[in-house]
């Protein structure tokens, strides 16, 4: 049988990298600088470590339930009725992540390249594409990512190198000036930038080797952290901690400040912005996939496509709730405070522990 469809390890880590790197990259230096001034990059590294631990829990669960998504796991472990509130919380989390990412995406595009276009047009046009890709299922999404990945990495590395001139790396000194409490708080806040990898819960049945997802996942999170740390350090080096705090999207300002003398492309903004459309798109798509996948699995409905068609307008409506960009970030703080912790920590840990106690699922070796 011709079957190139199951997700290989290579595809998986590309998938996770592209999903985690998203709109967060623009605001992250500000978040980090607010939390820890010039020690911001430590915050980001810790955020990566938190994500890694979280991913480890997911990989353990995947090992125990290699053919299941979060829905079946919760049903098996917690029982039919207890699973419902848990799944609803998780669904709300995915929905709000997807919607807020979309909104920030729209605002950034509006601010940087389409100044006079209404934000609704930007959102609806990208959502139509999101709908088209999600309806195809997991395999086309992972193939899509495979094509995008090399292009993005080349542009990111190129852009990073070009920001080096006129940077002052003494700006990140002295290190370790901030208390542990602030750093942990900042790390938790920066975890939004890593959000999105939870979609892995929904693609476990489509992975070739669901028992061994930790390695590609850890590799992917390492790459993401590297990109983020680079963004933070470069912003701090260019602007200093004080100014970084004042900018809404320091990374964007960083890219705008680049001048490429003597080359055909003078300013990177247009190029990076167009690549960034891809970055945001590859974040929104898997999360929206999760948003549609969860209820369709819960109701045991066979036509996943219909759920996509319903989920996408819901994402749009939620995305249009905040009035402006400041409010969007306030909503994000709200999500971080009330939905993020239960979804990325409490639910996976709960599932893992109670599955061990109730002895459900396949026995993990060692």
């Amino acid at each position, binding site marked *: 049988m011709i079957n*190139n469809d199951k997700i290989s390890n290579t595809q998986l880590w590309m998938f996770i990298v592209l999903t985690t790197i998203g709109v967060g990259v623009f605001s992250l230096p500000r978040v980090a600088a607010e939390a820890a001034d010039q020690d911001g990059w430590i915050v980001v590294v810790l955020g990566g470590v938190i994500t890694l631990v979280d991913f480890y829990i997911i990989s353990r669960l995947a090992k125990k339930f290699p053919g299941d998504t979060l829905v079946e796991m919760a049903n098996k472990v917690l029982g039919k009725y207890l699973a419902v509130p848990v799944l609803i919380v998780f669904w709300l989390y995915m929905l709000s992540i997807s919607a807020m990412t979309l909104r920030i995406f729209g605002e950034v595009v509006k601010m940087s390249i389409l100044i006079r276009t209404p934000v609704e047009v930007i959102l609806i046009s990208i959502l139509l594409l999101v709908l088209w890709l999600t309806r195809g299922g997991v395999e086309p999404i992972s*193939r899509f990512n495979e094509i995008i990945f090399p292009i993005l990495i080349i542009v990111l590395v190129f852009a990073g190198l070009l920001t080096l001139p006129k940077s002052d790396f003494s700006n990140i000194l002295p290190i370790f000036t901030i208390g542990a409490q602030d750093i942990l708080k900042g790390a938790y806040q920066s975890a939004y930038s890593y959000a999105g990898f939870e979609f892995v819960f929904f693609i476990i049945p489509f992975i070739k080797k669901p028992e061994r997802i930790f390695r590609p996942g850890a590799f992917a999170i390492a790459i993401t952290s590297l990109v983020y740390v680079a963004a933070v350090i470069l912003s701090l080096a260019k602007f200093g901690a004080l100014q970084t705090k004042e900018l809404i999207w320091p990374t964007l300002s960083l890219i705008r400040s680049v001048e490429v003398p003597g080359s055909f492309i*003078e300013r990177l903004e247009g190029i990076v912005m167009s690549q960034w459309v891809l970055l945001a798109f590859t974040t929104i798509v898997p999360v929206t996939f999760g948003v549609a996948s969860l209820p369709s699995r819960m109701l045991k409905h066979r036509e996943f496509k219909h759920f996509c068609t319903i989920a996408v307008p819901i994402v749009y409506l939620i995305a249009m709730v905040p009035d402006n960009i400041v409010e969007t970030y306030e909503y994000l703080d709200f999500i971080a405070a009330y939905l993020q912790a239960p979804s990325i920590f409490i639910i996976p840990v709960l599932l893992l522990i109670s599955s061990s106690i109730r002895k459900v699922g396949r026995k993990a070796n060692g």
Partner: protein
Amino acid sequence: MGLFDSIKKRLERNGQEQKKAEKMPIPEDLDETLKILREVFKDCDDVIFREFNVGVEQKLRYALVCIDGLSDKILVDNFVLESLMLDARMAQPGIDDIKSKLFDFTLNGTLAATELKENDDLNQVIGSILSADTAVFINGYDRAIVIGTKLWPARSPSEPKSEGVVRGPSDGFVETMRFNTALVRRRIRDPRLKVKQLQGGVRSKTDMAVLYMEDIVNEDILQQIYERLKEIDIDGILESGYIEQLIEDNIFSPFPQIQSTERPDAVAGAILDGRVGIIVDNSPFVLIAPATMLSMLHSSEDYYQRWVVATFVRTTRIIAAILSVFLPALYIAITSYNPDIIPFRFALSIAGAREGVPFPAFIEAAIMEISLELLREAGVRLPDPIGGTIGIVGGIVIGQAAVSAKIVSPVMVIIVSITAISSFTIPNFGLNTGMRIVRFLLMILAAVMGLYGVMLGFIAVLIHLVNLKSFGVPYLAPVVSMSGRDFKDSVVRLPIRTFIFRPEFLQVNNKKRMKRMSLGVKDDRNKNDKGEGSR
């Protein structure tokens, strides 16, 4: 429901009509046979009926039926009629023998032709006559002898009009299926190369041949191709383009999902990779399935040149293909929305060149692209000598005049020309045409939403491509579902010595292609080491 019922009924009726072509016995009486045939071939003035008598006493009545122009008359005259009418007289078998064994004598002892068949079904005999064979009827027998005398008008293999190469064979497929199978067989002299023949088209009865390597091809793909070919129920198949459109996966895609080529070496190469070739009679274009986008961007010359050059050329071609899709859209987006991303002076010079042009960039680009499409179409339709003139008149004279008249800017002319030149580097005609359509869509998006629109268009095209499959193989393979092995023959073309395995994405049965060879510099002792295990 009523509608479905009536459709169902109609389908059933159609099925019955076709099953009517059942066996029809041949009457023993020659006059009766000829009467039936004359009725069948009524008003077909190209059919020849020749009645003649055989034997010393001229008592044995024979009749010969063939079609004028299709059958080889020299063969019929010299080796059928002459043998029967003159040579047969010299033989003097006993009278009894003649009576009882006349048919066998004629079949095995008289006719001097290679291809002879015996048939007792008049319908099949009529079919054979229509495909250029000659039928001989003998009075008193309910059987007919069918002689292979196919000699239809045919062109001899000449250089393919598309996909030209500098290094490599210059023979191309022709309109005759038999010649085409021979061209492939000449390249692969292996009994494991199978040539399965089918017939398609209720009225045209077009011959088709499916070619594959028995031990390499993936059975699922082969099975799928057979199933789709058998589903076809149409009156006539005039070109392989019919088959292509009838068996492809997605009919709404602008991209061809089956490769068509005029080059026998390309087909032989594809068959050795584990793909399947479909040859359709009356068409010099042979289909290759499953096809991927990259396989259509490969030219067979890539494999004949040394790998450094081949990789360079192939990369250039792929960049050209990307340029041909995106360049006009980028120009529109940059000039009308984001002039800030190009250097200030360059932006100024573009603006200066556009000074006096009354149209926005999109209209300007559309005028040029449409006139280019007109030129292209005119160039194809016109006879060769005038076609060249059209190119000069259209390209140079009109282009220059349009710039002087300030209808378009000189930069636009450059952009459109580069786009056109880039698109000519794509070896596959179908892919080239599909990309033109995508180019226009992207231009519209660029005009509406600038760079963001171009990105949306790019994403949309990519989504379409990742969803597209050709007989179960992802269209973008091997770039997607990449395994390290397939990389060597994708965007780049590494040395042939590294092509130890066949492409993995085709999931073939026999993976190994050649014996491993050293990749280092060879010294004289190993000069003739050709890798004996190669298949």
